[in-house]
């Protein structure tokens, strides 16, 4: 059969890729190009997702990470080349968000749910809670600890993979180590996004 689901999906994704490339071609402003490039990344993830197997799930993660890394690097270059230095907006200046208990409750719920989910998804959910809390309070300047936690969690994640490879009989320890490691790593990494801009002082 020529037109199975995969072919239809592929045609749709290719079409959307072409549309975003045309938009990229017509846009002349550098900042808008950066935004459109983010849009262009999505079809490439969609093509991987079309595989529809657990392999696709394993491949999307590195694809996504590469895309985010490139986007962060490019936006940093944009900030430097345009000479944008002052970034006065440090937190959301909304009275309700700043003073009420709601951010704490919402953040706690998100972090708790993320811990229950574990893994990458849980990390993303918990990170959302952490970011929301940091943004609404906007008084966090001690990031060294978060960076260190991220590094240690990453090492634990890698160590768990070595357990899988070399000591398969301890797979349960490997699963737990990898799940907790990536949870903490994703939370820490996502909380750091946007806080490590600019030149090192």
């Amino acid at each position, binding site marked *: 059969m020529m037109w199975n689901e995969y072919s239809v999906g592929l045609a749709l994704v290719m079409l959307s890729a072409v549309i975003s490339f045309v938009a990229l071609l017509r846009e002349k402003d550098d900042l808008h190009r950066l935004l459109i490039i983010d849009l262009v990344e999505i079809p490439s993830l969609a093509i991987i997702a079309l595989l529809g197997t657990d392999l696709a799930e394993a491949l999307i993660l590195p694809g996504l990470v*590469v*895309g985010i*890394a490139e986007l962060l*690097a490019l936006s940093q*270059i944009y900030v430097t080349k345009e000479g944008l230095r002052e970034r006065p907006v440090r937190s959301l200046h909304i009275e309700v968000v700043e003073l009420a208990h709601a951010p704490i409750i919402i953040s706690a719920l998100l972090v708790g749910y993320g811990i229950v989910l574990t893994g990458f998804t849980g990390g993303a959910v918990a990170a959302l809670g952490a970011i929301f809390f940091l943004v609404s309070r906007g008084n966090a300047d001690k990031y060294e600890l978060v960076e260190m936690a991220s590094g240690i969690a990453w090492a634990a994640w890698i160590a768990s993979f070595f357990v899988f490879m070399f000591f398969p009989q301890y797979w349960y320890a490997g699963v737990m180590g990898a799940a907790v490691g990536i949870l903490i790593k994703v939370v820490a990494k996502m909380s750091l996004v946007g806080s490590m801009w600019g030149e090192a002082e």
Partner: protein
Amino acid sequence: MNEIGGQPLFLLPFGDIFIYFTPFTLTLFLLALIFTVLVIISKPERQIDIVFGGDAFLAKKISISEMRFRRFMAIACGLASMGAMVTGDLFDFALFTSLVGICNVGIVAAVKSRHVQNAAYQYGLVAMSATVPLFAGAAMAAATTGTLSILELARSSASVVPLSVKGLLTLGVMGEGMAPFYAAKAEMFRAPGAPYVIMCSLSSLLIFLRVIEVVLTV
């Protein structure tokens, strides 16, 4: 098996994925390794501007922090190229290639000069849009054949990967490394700091040679 790169000399299996050296990839790997060592031990060149019509000249200063960052990026670029040379997995190849693209941008982006940063930004946009055909090629190869292993795909005598997929892969590598279009990187090469900038062209050349081998093999 269509052996464009010669018989594999060394195989390290991870499931059906092999890390392997053929005489061809071994040569490229050694080239990347030697150059990475050179980058580690060498000091950056100091660009000289001659004042037109006079005897004066200006040596451009390269700050220690800038030098450190660019050296780190050049080493990372060397490691990524080495990874792209030895991997036997189409998706890993795509990942290493896009890593080479990011590192190439990073090598020049530390230069505090407006035109160099502009060039790096434009190049970064191209490199980023090139991830679409690159990852699409790898994913479509997995969808049509059921495996990502280059050796597994090379096993059958006829080519199992469709031509369009090969085209996408090549297009992606061309975008990441700007491989045959070095003129597009001219502004980037004007950045001071010789050994690091040369890493850009070397890595692009290597990934381009490797993708040709991959496309002809699978």
